[in-house]
Structure formats: C-alpha cells, structure tokens
C-alpha cells in the first residue's frame, strides 16, 4: 500500500471515531461542538505517557481516553442544566479552554508542540473503529439503546417511565469523550507531532458536519459522513482549495433539502429487515 493511501485511510479512521464521538452525545439531543477538546486531552495524555514515561502505546491510549472521559463527566453534569444553545456554547467554551491550556502548558511543549509519539498502525486504528461499530450495533438493539431513544424522543415522559435520564445524559458525554480521547491518542501516535492548534474549533465542527451529513439518527450516518468527507478531497483534487467551501455549501443545502442526512433510521431498519428475510430464506 502506498504511503499516500495509508495516510488517507488512517485519517479516515480517525475521522470516523470523531464522528462517532459526536454521535454518541447526540443520541440524547445534546450537541457538542467541543469534542476536539476531548481529543486533545486524549492525545496529549497518551503522548506524554509514551514519550516521557515509557508506557506502551495501547495502555497509554486507554489512559488518555479515560482522562478524556473524566472530563466528559465534568462537562456532562453541569450540562444537564443547560438546554440547546447554552449547552452548545458551553462545549465551545470548553474546547477553547483546553486548546489554550495546552498552548501554554510547558510540560507538553506549549506553543512549540509535542514531538515524539509514534506507533499507530492502520490495523490499530481500524481495530478501534471495529470495536466501536460493534458497540453501537449492540447498543442499537439493546434495552439501553431504547432508553436513549426515549430520552431523545421525549425526555420528560422518559422520566415518568422510570428512566434515569440524568445518568443517561452524563453517560453519553462520558462515552463520546472516551471515543474522542481514543481518536486523539491514535492521532498523536500517527502524526509524531502534535500542537494545540491541531485541536481547534474546525476539528469539532467537522466532526459535527460528518454526523449531520451522514445522518444523525443512526451511527451508520456518522460513519458514512466521515468516509465521504475523507474520500471527497481525494476525488476532488482539482477543487482542492475550494474543498471547504464545497463542504459548507453542501451542508447548508442538506439542512434545507434533506435534514435527516443521507442515512436514515428507516433505511437502516429496512436494510436490516431485508437481510433478515434473505438469511431466513437461505436457512429454509
């Protein structure tokens, strides 16, 4: 495989993870425009551990992700009091705080960035992607997944059904932060060098765009959105400079004409039903 193709696939995998991290939180109707902050925490923590403390990459990434998820709880709990716009602003503020923190934090390089972390392979990235895909697939079919759907559908009624909405809403923040933390750790150990500007608002925004474009109602949407946005630049070489404008215009149009995104819940359900029928016919 060419180095070039490998690079594209690696970043695509990381994009998929970032998209899933946004999706996780979105399942409870909470929009986080600050997942780059969680990514940064995962990246810097794991990078510090491998480079300065000699921790092997696998546990380092996990520790980094756990650190990120701790912040997921720290953000998630107060976020319960904030609805809609306020929550979005809070996540924006959080990501900026994290970014400026690492810009000034000397032990991880400050403005000069952090050099050294390495060890990510394509297999590792897609191993994690697979883990989370299986996780979300199981979640969608489980009672917990139904609880989340209920919260998204009508939070108040969900409470009167005995569901602990508080736990669910904070829990998904924790989950989303964990996934973003993994993405950060993988990213750091792939790029060999990270600086705070790698985790700016655009990263958070793009992750959200992946999910919205792909379809915000199923996790497949996040995957498809991330894939499209990762592959598109390569097929649109001639438009390379105007790529971001295209994305922007594309999203604006999508929100007008097909706000549910490319992949809808009905689509996934129909696909699942069809597959079941075919499998059943094969077994007969």
């Amino acid at each position, binding site marked *: 495989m060419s180095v070039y193709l490998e690079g594209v696939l690696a970043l695509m995998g990381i994009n998929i993870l970032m998209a899933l991290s946004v999706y996780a939180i979105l399942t409870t109707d909470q929009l986080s425009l600050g997942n780059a902050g969680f990514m940064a925490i995962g990246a810097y923590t794991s990078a510090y551990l491998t480079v300065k403390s000699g921790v092997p990459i696998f546990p380092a990434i996990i520790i980094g992700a756990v650190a990120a998820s701790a912040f997921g709880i720290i953000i998630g709990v107060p976020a319960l009091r904030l609805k809609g716009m306020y929550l979005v602003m809070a996540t924006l503020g959080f990501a900026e705080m994290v970014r400026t923190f690492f810009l000034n934090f000397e032990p991880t390089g400050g403005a000069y960035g952090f050099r050294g972390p390495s060890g990510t392979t394509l297999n590792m990235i897609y191993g994690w992607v697979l883990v989370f895909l299986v996780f979300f697939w199981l979640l969608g079919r*489980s009672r917990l997944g139904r*609880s989340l*759907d209920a919260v998204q559908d009508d939070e108040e009624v969900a*409470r*009167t059904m*005995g*569901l602990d909405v508080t736990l669910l809403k904070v829990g998904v923040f924790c989950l989303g932060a964990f996934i973003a933390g993994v993405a950060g750790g993988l990213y750091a150990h792939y790029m060999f060098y990270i600086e705070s500007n790698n985790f700016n608002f655009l990263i958070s925004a793009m992750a959200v765009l992946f999910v919205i474009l792909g379809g915000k109602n199923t996790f497949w949407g996040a995957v498809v959105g991330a894939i499209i946005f990762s592959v598109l630049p390569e097929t649109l070489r001639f438009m390379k400079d105007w790529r971001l404008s295209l994305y922007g215009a594309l999203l604006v149009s999508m929100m007008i004409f097909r706000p549910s995104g490319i992949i809808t819940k009905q689509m996934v359900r129909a696909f699942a039903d069809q597959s079941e029928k075919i499998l059943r016919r094969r077994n007969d």
Partner: protein
Amino acid sequence: MLEIKNISKAFGGLRALKKVTFQVPEKQVCGLIGPNGAGKTTLFNLITGILPPTEGSIKYLGSELTRLPANEIAKMGIARTFQNIRLFATMTVMENVMVAQNFRAQATITSLVRFSSAREKRFQEEANTLLKKMGLWEKRREQSVSLAYGEQRRLEIARALALEPRLLLLDEPAAGMNEAETEDLLDRIHEIRNMGKTILLIEHDMDVVMGICDYVHVLNFGELIAQGTPSEIQANEAVIEAYLGREEG
C-alpha cells in the same frame, strides 16, 4: 394510599392550585373532575414529580413524594398517561411498551449482550401479554404514531401498565373517543381495577366518571370544591354552578 395535603402551586402570579387536600384509598377508582383550567393536570404533574409544589405535601404509601425526581416516583409504582397523547413517536408499539420495563429489566450497559437470558424472555412475555390484552398485538411492529387515535390511547395505557404500577394516573383517557370506544375503555379500567390497582382519573366525560368512579373530587380554579360519590356530586350545587357558570361565562 395517596395523601395530598395542602398542595398549592403558583406559576409566578398565577395560582393554579390552592391548598388542595384529599386522599385516594387503595384499590379504588377515584375521579378528578372540574372545568378546564381547574388545575387537574397540574396536580398530576406534581404527583409524578414533573413539577415541584409551591407548598404542601404528597404522601404515597407513607413516603413523601414532593422532593423526589420523576423517575424515582415512577419506580415506586406510580404511572401515568397524558392529556395530549405523548407516545414515543420514533418507536414501534412494542418498543414503547418495552421501554417502560427498562428500569425493572436493568437496562444498563450489560443489556448490550444480554439478549436471550431467561429474564429477558420473561419480560418479553409480559409485554406480549399486555399488548394482547389491550388489543394491540397485531400492530406491535407498527410505528406508534401510525395507529388510530383510540389505539394510541390504549397504547399509552399499556405503556403505563408495563411499569407494573400500583397507582395509575389517567389524564382524560376517554377524550376524543366515540361511544363504542368509551364503553371499551370502561371495561378496561374495570379490568385494571380487578388487577388490584388504584386509579386516579381526570375526565370530562360524565358517563365515564359516573360509570366507573367509586369516589369523585371536584376542582375549580385550583380549589377543591366538593368530594363524594358520583351520585352525590351530580346533585351538588357548587359543582353544578361551577360547570354551568363556566358555560355561561
């Protein structure tokens, strides 16, 4: 079973409930009636923990409800339906019912892998039975919002029953129903009472109230103006005035 004492609720300057006090004994069907805006649904919201009272206490089986979060109250065995049907629109009929089982079925992270345990099968059976009893079995895979109006009301009741409540709060369950459907509803409420459940019922349809309630409480402008058996209430002057007065005004 349910003790409502001096409950008041004010929204800013608007006093929706004023020192309301009454009891709901176990295994009875109690009616809560009154003109529109009397505060009936607000009272339901207070009981189920959706809103906090401005003052007063609500005791259920001896425990104080007023400081508890809504999901705790539901777990204690109080379930409700809503005046303007609030089903989970993105889910099927079956899923709506099953979600109500979740707090009992321990729908935690382990539920991702627990698909065929004996426990899960038991819950599935319960849901099936419930749906069959409410006449919704054939439509179990349909989107909840695609059901006919009367069926949606039945689904809401089924969902509330899936909580295995001891106290069931029904908010205008007969609203918008024709005679046949209302008859059917009365039968079902009888059945639910025979299951040993206590029912508190908000209704405007007098036939339903007379036909099924053991006892009736009447609210007007947030105050309890009368209570008694259905026949007593029908003859009560204050009640008649409340309703007639409203019609004229």
